[in-house]
Each structure stands twice: as structure tokens, then as C-alpha cells.
């Protein structure tokens, strides 16, 4: 697959790491000198820029967290002046006060370049029509993808979220070849299209999906690909990193994290120690080139693994695997860690039930009680009660096996669980209500 910038994308690993070291060193000097926030943090950690003598010395630097951004609302950590800022984005603030991200023109350029590389790596380019069905506005998804798609010479259909029937009409009329949206919104589009009598596979030119902004699974990918006749690629990013930043390549084997843009570490969320490639831990990112809101060892809270081997596509940059859960989404049920994504993964392998689900956790007496509500598929409904009971037992059994926790399953009518046109909220934890 051709590269947007082969010199960087296929650069030998040693050269990449040398480049990263230089960028890190200058970043640390700059922040120590000009950012009161980072200066104080480095002092607290008793680390000086002179201590950074090799790439792995990044581990000497302090972590920063989402709460640091909230505590410094709106722009106390910014290292660019108002004159240099060209844009703001504001995160949804679902877990507290919103966070504000500012961008200089260089920040926007790096963001756009990162996406241009990613979109090219899945085979998109001139002649493609990319329907951007992420929200436009304060959320980074719409505008980020918009500029990335324009940069590669594709035609952008800035559809944003909502008005789904119109989206489907435009998809047909303007021959959209790719769509960028959340996986749950694409499922919703698929369902609405079916109701309208539109077969996405046959009646549209759609062949690529760039899906992200919420966790999803390999099973969901297979289902989307088979059902809609497209190749579905995962995309990763958060507003603090700029927005949606890193995509999978055509190999679908994890996100390429461009080493000239970001330095990735996987750490143990409890001890903060760096883990080896292939080990499961919390994603921690240092953005090497960011002017307005620099990020050193930012602990995103996403759980994943990193792969260092060279991808079959020829790109030398490390890959991180599909996000398995969030440190803070993690449910502790009777002392056992449970991620909603594990539930989704288990359900995907059971054809009798749908992909939407809801987890309800309650405390009954001293014990936690986990209920999973899932839709019974039309094809597997029979008049016989005992066959429905068997489906339920099968789902309970599979969930218990994969989660190591007793789960009660409630079968509900198809279409009755809430569909979300943005980030899915699939967990109702009544213990905290």
C-alpha cells in the first residue's frame, strides 16, 4: 500500500528513535524553560532536562493526567500565546469539567498530516468521497477528519451526526466511498437503511469505514464488514492528543503511532512502571511536536498493548492494539475486573443475540449483581419457551466463562435497547447512584 510520506513512514527504526530522542530532548528543554506547569512538575519529580540522555529516559519524567487539564481549566497549561492560537476544541466533559485544547497552525498541520498518512494507508485518496459523520463543532472528530480527508485530495461530504435518512440518501446520490463515524452510528445507519429498503452493500459505493471515538471489538468489525460489505478500520485519538489521530493500515493489525509525532509507552496502571512490548497496560503518550498544549507522558486511561515489530505493510512505526477498555470504565464485580468490551466480545460470538447490550450492576445485600440485557435476534425466536431459555443459558454461560463472574442475562425485544449516536453509554452502575 502506498505511503503518504514514505521517507518517514518507512524510516528504519533506529533512525526513528534517534529522531524521537532529539525531539524529546528539545521538548523537555522548552517546557522546563517556558512552562510553569511542567517546570514545577519536573522539579517535584527531581528531574532536569540534562537528565534526559537517551530515549528511555522519558521514564524519568512525571506523568500528567486528565485531572491536570481540568484543574488548569481553561488554558493555564497552554504554552502558546493568544496570537499563536488558531483554534479551540472542548471535550464533552462526561467525567467532570470539560477540558479545552488549543491549537497553533503547526499543531493543526501535524494533526492533519497524521490523518493523511492514516487515510492513505487504508487506500483512500483522490477520487474518494469521504462522508464525515462525526460531530462537527467542539468535538474534534468532525473537523479533524475533515481536514485529513481534504489533505489527501478526497472529496469531503461533511454530514456530521444525525438526520440519518438524509445521510443515506446523500451517500447514494453522491457516491460516498468511505464513511468516518462511530461504529455504533454506522450500525444505526445500517438499520435505518434497511428500514428504508436500501441495501448498503448493493445500493451504495461505500467500501471503507473509518470507525472510532468509542470502544468496539473484532467481532463487531466482522459483523459490520459482512453486513455492509465494507472494510472497517479502527481509528484512535482523544482531544488532548489533538483528536482522532492514528488509524490502522490495510492490514487491520492495530494503529500505527507515528514516531515523529508521538512517543508511546505502555505502563502498569498501578505502579506506573513501563511494560515490555506485547504486555497489557495503560497507554501513555508524549506528543513530541505540540506547541499550544504540550503533553508529556499523558496517561489516557486506555488499556492496550504495543507491538514493535515491523508491520506487513512496510511501515516501521509501532502499533498499539485495539483498545480493550478504560482504566476508569473498568467495573469491579465481586473483586474481579470486568471491561464492557469483554461483554461485547463474548456477545459477538453468539449469533442468537444482537450486538447492542446494557450492563446493570447492583448491590444485592453484600454482593455485586451483574445483569446483561441483550436483544434476542429475530431469526432465533421460536415459539418454544425452553429454546429461548437455552439461548439465555448459553449467553450466561459464555459470559461467565469469559468474565469469570456470574452474570444474569435478560433477553429483550429487538430494537429496545438504546442506540446512541455518539459515545455509547452501556453501563448502569446502580452501586454508585
Amino acid at each position, binding site marked *: 500500500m502506498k505511503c503518504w510520506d514514505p521517507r518517514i513512514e518507512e524510516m528504519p527504526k533506529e533512525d526513528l528513535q534517534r529522531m524521537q530522542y532529539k525531539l524529546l530532548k528539545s521538548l523537555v528543554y522548552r517546557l522546563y524553560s517556558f512552562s510553569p506547569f511542567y517546570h514545577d512538575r519536573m522539579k517535584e519529580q527531581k528531574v532536569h532536562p540534562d537528565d534526559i540522555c537517551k530515549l528511555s529516559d522519558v521514564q524519568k519524567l512525571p506523568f500528567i493526567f486528565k485531572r491536570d487539564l481540568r484543574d488548569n481549566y481553561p488554558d493555564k497549561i497552554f504554552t502558546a500565546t493568544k496570537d499563536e492560537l488558531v483554534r479551540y476544541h472542548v471535550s464533552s466533559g462526561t467525567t467532570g469539567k470539560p477540558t479545552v485544547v488549543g491549537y497553533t497552525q503547526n499543531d493543526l498541520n501535524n494533526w492533519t498530516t497524521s490523518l493523511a498518512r492514516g487515510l492513505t494507508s487504508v487506500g483512500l485518496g483522490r477520487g474518494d468521497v469521504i462522508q464525515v459523520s462525526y460531530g462537527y463543532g467542539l468535538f474534534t472528530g468532525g473537523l479533524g477528519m475533515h481536514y485529513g480527508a481534504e489533505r489527501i485530495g478526497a472529496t469531503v461530504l461533511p454530514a456530521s451526526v444525525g438526520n440519518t435518512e438524509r445521510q443515506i440518501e446523500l451517500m447514494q446520490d453522491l457516491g460516498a466511498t468511505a464513511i468516518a463515524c462511530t461504529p455504533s452510528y454506522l450500525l444505526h445507519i445500517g438499520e435505518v437503511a434497511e428500514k428504508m429498503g436500501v441495501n448498503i452493500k448493493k445500493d451504495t459505493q461505500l467500501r471503507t469505514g473509518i470507525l472510532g471515538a468509542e470502544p468496539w471489538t473484532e467481532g463487531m468489525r466482522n459483523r459490520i464488514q459482512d453486513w455492509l460489505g465494507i472494510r472497517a478500520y479502527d481509528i484512535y485519538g482523544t482531544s488532548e492528543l489533538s483528536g482522532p489521530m492514528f488509524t490502522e493500515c490495510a492490514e487491520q493489525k492495530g494503529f500505527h503511532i507515528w514516531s515523529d509525532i508521538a512517543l508511546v509507552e505502555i505502563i502498569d496502571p498501578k505502579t506506573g512502571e513501563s511494560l515490555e512490548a506485547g504486555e497489557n497496560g495503560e497507554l501513555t503518550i508524549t506528543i513530541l511536536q505540540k506547541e499550544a498544549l504540550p503533553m508529556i507522558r499523558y496517561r489516557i486511561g486506555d488499556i492496550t498493548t504495543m507491538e514493535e515489530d515491523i508491520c506487513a505493510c512496510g511501515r516501521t512505526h509501532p502499533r498499539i492494539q485495539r483498545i480493550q477498555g478504560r482504566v476508569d470504565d473498568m467495573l469491579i464485580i465481586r473483586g474481579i475486573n470486568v471491561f464492557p468490551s469483554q461483554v461485547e466480545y463474548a456477545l459477538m460470538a453468539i449469533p442468537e443475540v444482537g450486538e447492542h447490550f446494557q450492563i446493570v450492576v447492583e448491590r444485592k445485600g453484600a454482593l455485586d449483581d451483574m445483569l446483561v440485557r441483550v436483544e*434476542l435476534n429475530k431469526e432465533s425466536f421460536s*415459539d418454544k419457551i425452553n429454546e*429461548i431459555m437455552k439461548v439465555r443459558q448459553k449467553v450466561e454461560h459464555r459470559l461467565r466463562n469469559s468474565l469469570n463472574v456470574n452474570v444474569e442475562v435478560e*433477553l*429483550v*425485544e*429487538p*430494537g*429496545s435497547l438504546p442506540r446512541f449516536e455518539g459515545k455509547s453509554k452501556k453501563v448502569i452502575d446502580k452501586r454508585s447512584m
Partner: protein
Amino acid sequence: MDIKKYVIRQISIFSENRPGRLAAIAHALGEEKINILAFSIAEANGFGVVRALVDHPEKAHDKLLSLGFNIAFTDVIAVHMKDQPGGLYEVAKILGDAGINIEYSYAYSGKEGAVLILRVDQIDDAITKIKTSGATLLERSVFH
């Protein structure tokens, strides 16, 4: 004997066990001017199956499907019973003696006597046995 004319199409609907679900089904059928001739609800921890004989099963199926319900057709038979003590015994005995299992059943008692609706494991055998033993089976045309 034309066995098929005694095979009646019952509609079976999956329903969550929560307030308003039966009303939703009944409202949809009423809107389509579909008359319910007999029905029952089977309940199992958390969900239920509503089973009904209606005058227009296809129309009922399409309407409920369009509303997102899980719905299936099931073949059942209807046997005329004497509306008096021992009436059920006479019918049940025929099937029991023939080794035919009743999966479920429900009944109604109307102007023209009592009727037992049966879902059995061997429907053709059941029809033959009931006919030859002299009991009266209701034809499909009585319902739809």
C-alpha cells in the same frame, strides 16, 4: 383426508415481561382491525411468549414485525370439547393413548361450546387420531 385444512396458524410473539407490552401488541392489532379469537401468555422469568389465534395472521405478522417485535408462526390444532365435566379428559386421552405429546395448550369456552387449542409434537398424527376417534376438529377456515 385433507389434514392441512385442520392446521391453524398461530402467531407467537416474544415479549419482555414489563408493563405495557401486551397493550402495545393489542393496540397494534386493534389498529389493523385484526380480531383476536383466542390467546394465552406463557411466562418465563423475565420474558414471555404471547400466543394468539387471529382472523388475519399474515397482516398481524407484518404489522408486529414492522413495529420491531419478534414474531413467528406456529402450527396448532383446535379441538371441539364438550363444555361439561370430563370434556377435556376425552380429548387429552386420545392424544395420551396415541403417545402424542402436548407441548402446550389453551382453551376458550364460547357460544358454540368449548375449544381446546393444542400445540403437539406430531401434528399430522394428532389430526388423524382425533378424527378417527370421533372428536371434532375445527377447520382453519373457522379462524382465518
